[in-house]
């Protein structure tokens, strides 16, 4: 099977943006009935290659063949008509339409020439059941969390795919269970002879499902490899162009809680309808991980601590003082920061430059009348670009032109530049490549050593285990367990999540 002719073949693809040569003669070939990983660092050109394949961008050179025929798609609709369906990196669905409308957009079932919504809703429900989603498909998409939206986008993409399915970092905000059910579906599509392109930054996932691997680096093709014969070290070496310095895999030292000052205490903080009262304390220099399934209330908890939502019950004590957080600004002035989960909607200021996106949090802490001098802004931005290795030619570029992972790094850089004493990270490494991932973990450890406290919500159990001094498990909008020391282990966390 793996030696059948390629369904999709790209040769010598070039793509230029003003000031950036994003693809330099890249080749790519996808066979029917294979899962093909497309890997590379942030900004290597993966999303761009996908957008060229599907006609979102017009290629500046090279050829694309589908079943041997050269094709010239000019928009996603053309590509879909040819049997290529895509789930793009950011959730690109329509928040104002219902879930069912999103799934069947452009393929609505008809009856006597008019759309038959009853059928569409029923089919949508059936479809989502495969992904263990039991939701009201007649509600607007915006009423669901980003992870649910991600699943809906996948369900839609899979349902459309006829020959080729392209998944650009679909697993970034999914938890382990969701990822498994996605893999199950991908494998069954492979059985049906559909070619799948899969972009991810999780190497485990690559080895779990992929047959072959194509690696990009700096807009160029590094090579195409059989997954079975490429070792992890080799893979990482190809991606980064150098060996990854061995990560300190040891666990963070158990903090001596008695000697540590407490930074934040939540006493029965909750909000009816979104979070049951929670008790929680975060010591200075401590990393508290938040674990849980989709919709367990991690994001709600983060929003409460940051004052985006107002707590209806309980007291919040910060550095020994009882505080009333009425808005994010109150929290920021205390030295709290939050990297939100939905980067596109709540994080980036698209048309503004990277520099402005980075300096803004610090500026707001200072007040509008004390404008940070330009030179200092540039210094802040350049420091962030260097520390987080953000791939950009120019800090004056609008942030919306960066690749997804680099946008995430800019948001992180924004908060690091504001010198917070407590930082809340909701899915912080979403879409970040492994090189940068290691870098960020190192950075966070370093900051903690200097006294920064962290609250990290993540669906990556490995990541939580690597970071945390303490893990809080949430289920159904309620805190169900708190794990310390040796209990911080993927198995133990899974147990806590699953126990009734």
């Amino acid at each position, binding site marked *: 099977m793996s030696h059948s002719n390629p369904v999709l073949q790209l040769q010598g693809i070039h793509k230029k943006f003003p000031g950036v040569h994003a693809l330099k003669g890249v080749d790519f070939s996808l066979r029917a009935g294979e899962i093909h990983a497309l890997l590379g660092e942030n900004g290597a050109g993966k999303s761009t290659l996908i957008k060229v394949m599907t006609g*979102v961008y017009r290629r500046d050179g090279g050829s694309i063949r589908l079943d041997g025929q050269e094709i010239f798609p000019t*928009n*996603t*609709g053309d*590509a*879909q008509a040819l049997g290529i369906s*895509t789930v*793009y990196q950011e959730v*690109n*669905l*329509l*928040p*104002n*339409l219902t879930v069912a*409308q*999103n799934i069947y*957009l*452009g393929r*609505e079932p008809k009856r006597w020439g*008019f*759309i038959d*919504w009853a059928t569409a809703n029923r089919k949508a429900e059936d479809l989502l059941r495969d992904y263990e989603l039991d939701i009201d498909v007649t509600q*607007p998409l915006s009423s669901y969390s980003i992870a649910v939206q991600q699943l809906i986008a996948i369900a*839609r993409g899979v349902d459309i795919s006829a020959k080729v399915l392209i998944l650009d970092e679909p697993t970034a905000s999914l938890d382990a269970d969701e990822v498994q059910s996605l893999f199950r579906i991908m494998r069954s599509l492979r059985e049906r002879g559909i070619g799948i392109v899969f972009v991810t930054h999780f190497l485990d996932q690559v080895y779990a499902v992929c047959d072959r691997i194509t690696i990009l680096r700096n807009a160029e093709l590094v090579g195409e490899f059989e997954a079975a014969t490429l070792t992890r070290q080799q893979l990482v070496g190809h991606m980064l162009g150098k060996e990854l310095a061995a990560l300190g895999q040891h666990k963070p030292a158990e903090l001596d809680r008695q000697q540590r000052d407490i930074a934040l205490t939540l006493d029965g903080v909750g909000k009816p309808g979104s979070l049951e009262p929670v008790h929680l304390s975060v010591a200075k220099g401590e990393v508290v991980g938040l674990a849980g399934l989709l919709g367990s209330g991690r994001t709600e908890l983060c929003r409460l601590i940051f004052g985006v939502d107002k707590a209806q019950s309980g007291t919040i004590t910060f550095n020994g003082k009882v505080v009333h957080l009425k808005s994010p600004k109150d929290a920021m002035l205390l030295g709290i920061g939050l990297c939100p989960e939905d980067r596109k909607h709540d994080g980036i200021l698209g048309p503004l430059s990277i520099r402005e996106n980075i300096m803004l949090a610090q500026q707001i802490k200072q007040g509008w009348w004390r404008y940070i001098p330009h030179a200092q802004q540039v210094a802040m931005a350049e420091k962030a670009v260097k520390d987080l290795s953000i791939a950009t030619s120019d800090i004056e570029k609008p942030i919306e032109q960066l690749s997804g992972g680099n946008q995430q790094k800019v948001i992180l850089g924004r908060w690091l530049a504001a010198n917070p004493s407590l930082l809340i990270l909701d899915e912080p490494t979403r879409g970040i490549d492994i090189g940068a991932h290691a870098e960020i973990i190192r950075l966070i450890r370093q900051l903690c050593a200097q006294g920064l406290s962290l609250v990290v919500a993540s669906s990556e159990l490995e990541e939580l285990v690597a970071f945390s001094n303490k893990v809080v498990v949430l289920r159904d909008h309620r805190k169900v367990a708190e794990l310390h020391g040796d209990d911080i282990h993927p198995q133990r966390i899974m147990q806590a999540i699953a126990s009734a």
Partner: protein
Amino acid sequence: MVNRKFIPLIVTCCLFFLLFGIGAAQFEGFGSSRVFFNLLSDNAFLIIAAIGMTFVIISGGIDLSVGAVIALTGVIASVLITQYGWHPLLVFPVVLLLGTLFGATMGALIHYYRLQPFIVTLAGMFLARGLASVISEESLPIDHEFYNEVASFGFMLPGDAWVGSSTLICIAVLIAAIVLAHFTRFGVRVYAMGGDPNSAGLMGIPQAQTTIRIYALSSFLAALAGIVYSFYTFSGYSLAAVGVELDAIAAVVIGGTLLTGGYGYVAGTLIGVLIMGVVQTYISFEGTLSSWWTKIVIGLLLFAFIALQRVMSRTRH
């Protein structure tokens, strides 16, 4: 339980009847079916134009050219009928086609050159009015047997309420628009474009085609409104329907459609127009306000209404 998304619509509807009730309690003759149906027939052209505007606004755009297209349609129709002796039934398809092409051109400019709808349609407004005044500065009467027949076509409801051809056309357009918005692919695409045009594109919506059709539809309906307007006045005049675009936008927004796109209902627009009509009727029954107090009172009523609408639909959430 009613679906939550219909609450603003229901609130708006209740407020309309409240307003109407206040008028009826205060003035003799106000609470008659005649006054109610006058609202429909007097505003038929505005309803039709505002329905087109609803589609545009739901898609996240705006169309400032509708008033000018109404005027241009009237002028062309009256020139063709009166000076060239064409039969109105031949003229109507021609002007509707011209209107559609006009809108399609604006849509094409907006899509292909990434120009902002506000400005393209503003230029369209200047262009249409400019053309109208070049064709004829003077207002031209339409004198044709067919128009008399159209004017006398209709039936009487109890209470002296006349349901004429304009009212019938407007009801037909309304029903067709509701079906178009909610039971066709085009309708879903309009909402999709308003939700997030980039995502809509990435989901395979043919953006070019959809944008062009949206503006073509709006101008088509504006041309139809121009024809209905000409039934109303038996004439064509380059300065007719000045500012109708603002009335239409206000009606659409009062009817609960968001100017940022993505949300709204055609039926809401109908209520929006009726509310503005009832305010006007109220003022003309009142009959003692000077010119400036008329403006101030319209402003105040508009404000009271919108504030009430916000407060009521907020607390119910």
